[in-house]
C-alpha cells in the first residue's frame, strides 16, 4: 500500500516532490453558470437556460475532478531553501528586572481582595459625602439616593421636589445596588491598575481619574439625560468622586503586594487541572 499524504488524502509524493491540487476549469464554468442563471431573470430566459446548462456541466466536471480521488499535480521542490538569518545580533532590554531575562509587567500586583476592600471603603466615603449633601443642601438624606436611582429609573425624576426628598423602597434598593456594584467594580479596577502607575498612585486614582470622569459625565449628561443633569450639584459631585478615589486608593496601596507568576499558561494561573502541564502532586494523584 502506498503511503498517504495527510493533507491531500492522496498517495504520498516521491522524494523531492510535492503534490498539489491540479488546476481546473470547472470552478469558473460553474461560477459563470450561476451568474447567467441569475442574469436571465433580468435579461432573457435563454440566458438562464445557458446558465443552467453551464451550472450542470460545471457540477459534473467538478465531481469528476474529485471523485473517486482528487486530481493533483506533482511539483519538484527547489534544492535551495532560503536561509533565515539576521544582521541584528544585539538585543536591547529595558532595565526593569535584572534577575529576569524577560518579564511581564507589573512584576507585583495587589490581590483581588485589595480591590474589593478599597471599593467598599471608597463607597462608604462617597456615601457619607452624598448624604451630607442631601441633609445640608436639600434637607433630606433621601434626595441623593433617589437621584442615583434615577440614572436607570427615569420615573424618579418625575416625582417632583417633595417626592424626591421622601423615602421610596424601590429607589433605595436600586440606589444601593448601583452604588455597591459600581464601587466594587471601580475598586477592582484600582487594584489592577495602580501597580501599573507606581509613581503617585493616589494622585492618579484620587484626583486625576475623578477629574476626567466628572468632566466626561458633565459634558455628556446634558445630552443623555437633561432632567438628571439639571439636578446635579457638580461641586458636591466632584467632591464625592475625590472622596471615593482617595479612600479607595489609600486602602488599596496599604495592602501587601503579591508577585505575579511570570510566563505561566493561563490554564495554570486559573487553577484548572491540566494533565501534562501541571506537576503531579506526590501521593495525591493516581499513577496512570
Amino acid at each position: 500500500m502506498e503511503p498517504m499524504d495527510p493533507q491531500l488524502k492522496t498517495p504520498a509524493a516521491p522524494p523531492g516532490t510535492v503534490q498539489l491540487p491540479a488546476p481546473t476549469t470547472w470552478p469558473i464554468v460553474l461560477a459563470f453558470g450561476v451568474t447567467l442563471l441569475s442574469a436571465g431573470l433580468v435579461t432573457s430566459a435563454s440566458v438562464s437556460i445557458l446558465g443552467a446548462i453551464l451550472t450542470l456541466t460545471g457540477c459534473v466536471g467538478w465531481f469528476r475532478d474529485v471523485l473517486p480521488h482528487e486530481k493533483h499535480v506533482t511539483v519538484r521542490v527547489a534544492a535551495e531553501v532560503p536561509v533565515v538569518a539576521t544582521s541584528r545580533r544585539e538585543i536591547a532590554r529595558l532595565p526593569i528586572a535584572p534577575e529576569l531575562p524577560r518579564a511581564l509587567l507589573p512584576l507585583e500586583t495587589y490581590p483581588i481582595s485589595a480591590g474589593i476592600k478599597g471599593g467598599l471603603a471608597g463607597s462608604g466615603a462617597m456615601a457619607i459625602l452624598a448624604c451630607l449633601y442631601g441633609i445640608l443642601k436639600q434637607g433630606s438624606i433621601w434626595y441623593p439616593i433617589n437621584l442615583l436611582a434615577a440614572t436607570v429609573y427615569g420615573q424618579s425624576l418625575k416625582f417632583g421636589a417633595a417626592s424626591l426628598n421622601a423615602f421610596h423602597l424601590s429607589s433605595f434598593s436600586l440606589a444601593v445596588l448601583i452604588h455597591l456594584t459600581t464601587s466594587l467594580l471601580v475598586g477592582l479596577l484600582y487594584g489592577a491598575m495602580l501597580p501599573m502607575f507606581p509613581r503617585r498612585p493616589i494622585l492618579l486614582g484620587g484626583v486625576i481619574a475623578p477629574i476626567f470622569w466628572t468632566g466626561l459625565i458633565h459634558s455628556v449628561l446634558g445630552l443623555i439625560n437633561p432632567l438628571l443633569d439639571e439636578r446635579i450639584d457638580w461641586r458636591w459631585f466632584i467632591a464625592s468622586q475625590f472622596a471615593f478615589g482617595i479612600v479607595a486608593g489609600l486602602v488599596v496601596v496599604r495592602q501587601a503586594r503579591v508577585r505575579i507568576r511570570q510566563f505561566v499558561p493561563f490554564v495554570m494561573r486559573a487553577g484548572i487541572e491540566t494533565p501534562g502541564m501541571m506537576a503531579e502532586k506526590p501521593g495525591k494523584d493516581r499513577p496512570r
Partner: protein
Amino acid sequence: MSSDSIALNPALESTRPIGDRLHDWVTTVDHKKLGILYILYALVFLVIGGIEATIMRIQLIVPHNHFVSPQVFNEMFTMHGTTMIFFVAMPIMFGFANYLLPLMIGARDMAFPRLNAWSFWLAAFGGLLLYFSFIGGNGLYGAGGAPDVGWFAYAPLTARVFSIGHSTDFWTLGLLVSGIGSIGTAANIAATVLCLRCPGMTLGKMPLLAWMNLVMAALVLLAISPLTAAQIMLSLDRYLGAHFFDTQAGGSAVIWMHFFWIFGHPEVYVLVIPAFAFASEIIPVFSRKPIFGYPVMVAATVAIGFVSFTVWAHHMFTVGMSSYANSFFTISTMIVGVPTGIKIFNWIGTMWGGKIEFKTPMLFCIGFLFQFLIAGLTGIMLAVAPFDWQLGNSYFVVAHFHYVIVGAILFALFAAFYYWFPKMSGRMYNERLGKWHFWLFLIGFHLTFDFMHIPGLLGMPRRIYTYEPGRGWDIWNLIITVGVFFQAAGILLFVCNLLWSRIKGPVCTSDPWDAWTLEWSTSSPPPEYNFAAIPVVRSRRPLWDIKHPEDPDWKYE
C-alpha cells in the same frame, strides 16, 4: 494514481505563450494566484469607485452646478457605495487573507482550493453583473440604468412602483451572486485556520493576522446570510408580488432596515478587523518589538466580533424607535469602544520604547492609528441617540464613516501593500515614491474628510444633488473636492510605483524586513508549494527563535 506530473521551471515561465499563461491564471486553484486575482480585481473596482466619487465631488464643488444630471448623480452615489464595500474592500481583504494565511500558518494551500477558485469567480462575475446594469438596466420599461436607490436600498424606494426597470434587480442579483462567493471564502478561511496549522502552532501561537481573519470569517458567515435573505425577499416582492416590504399591503419598510443593518454594521468590522490584522503584523516589525498584549489583542478582537452583532440599529435612530431600543443601542455601541480602545492602547504600547523605522508601511500604520482613533470618537458621538437625531443623514455621518473606511481601512491596506509587495513580487518598491504617496494621500484625506464634518454640522444632507449658495457650505465643499485631487494623485503614484517596481524594482531577499512570521522564511515570491518541508514552530515568532537561538521566545510563552 490520478495525477498529472509536471515540472515547472520559473526561468522558463516568461517565455511561455501568453495564452498558456492566461489559461494558468483562469484555471488556477493556487491560493497565491487567487489572492493576487482578488487584489487586482479589487484594484480595478477601486479605480472605478474612485472615478464615481470624483464625479460626485466635481458636481458638488460649487452651488447650482450641473456637471451631471440628478439621475446620474443618484447612480454615482449608489454605485460608489456598493462598489467600494462589496467589490473593493471585501475582495481585497479576501485577497490578502488568501495570499497570506497558508504562508503564515505553514500550510501548502487553503483548505478547499477549488471552492476558493469558485468563490473568487462568483465575486468577480457578481461585480460584472452589477456593472452590466449600465447597459442592460433599462429592461422592459425603458427606464432606469445603473441602480440609483443608495447603497443600502431602503424600502419602499426599491418597490417596482418607485424603481421601474431592472436597475434595482441588477443590484440585488449582483450582490446575491457575489455574496455566495463571500460565504465560500469565509468558510474556507475558517477551515484553513482551524485545520491546516503547521505542527506546534496552537491557537495561542497563531499570528494575530490568522486570529483576526478567523473572526472576520465568522462575521461574514453570520452577517451575509440576513442580507441574502433580504435580497431574496426583495426579489420576491418585485417579481412575484410578495409584500415583505410593501407598507401598503401590510409589509414593513423598517424590516428591510433591520435586515440590512444587521448585515451592514458587522460588515464594518468585516473590513476593519483585517485592517487591525495588518497593523498588528506591521507595527511590531517596524518597532522592533513583539506585539504588546497578544492575549488581550485576541480577546479584544473576539469581543468586537460579538458586540458588533448588537449595535446595528444605531443606524436607525432617526427612524423613531422606542426609548428602550435607543438606550440599548446607544450603550452597546459605546461598549464597542472598550475593546477597540484596548487595541489602540496595545499598538501604542508596542511602539513605546521601540526602535521605530519610519518606512512607508509604518507611516501608513501610524496614519491608520490616529485616524482610526478620530473615527472612533465621532462614532461615539453618533452613538448618542439625541446627537444622532441632529446629525443623522448629514455630511457629518459621511465624514465619520469615510474616516473609518479611508482613514483607517484604506491606510492599513496601503501599509499591507507596501509591506507584502516584496514577498508577492520578489522585488522592492521605490521607498521615495511610497513616501510621496503617503504624504499626498494624507494631505488629500485630511482636506477632504476633516472639512467634510463642517457642512454636516451646518446641516448639509448626504446624497444632495446640489445646493443654494450662501448657506455656509460653499467654501467647505470646494476644499473637500480639492482634497480629492490630492488623493487621486497619491493613488496614481501608488499604481505607478507598484507597476514600475514589479518590472524594474531591485530584486529583494526572502526576508527584507527582518521579520518574524513564517511567510518570510520562504523565497520571494514563494514557490507554488510554499514550503519545501512543512515548518514546525514553538512560539508566536518562529523566525525570531531561529535568528536568536540564544534567546528564543518559546521559553517564555
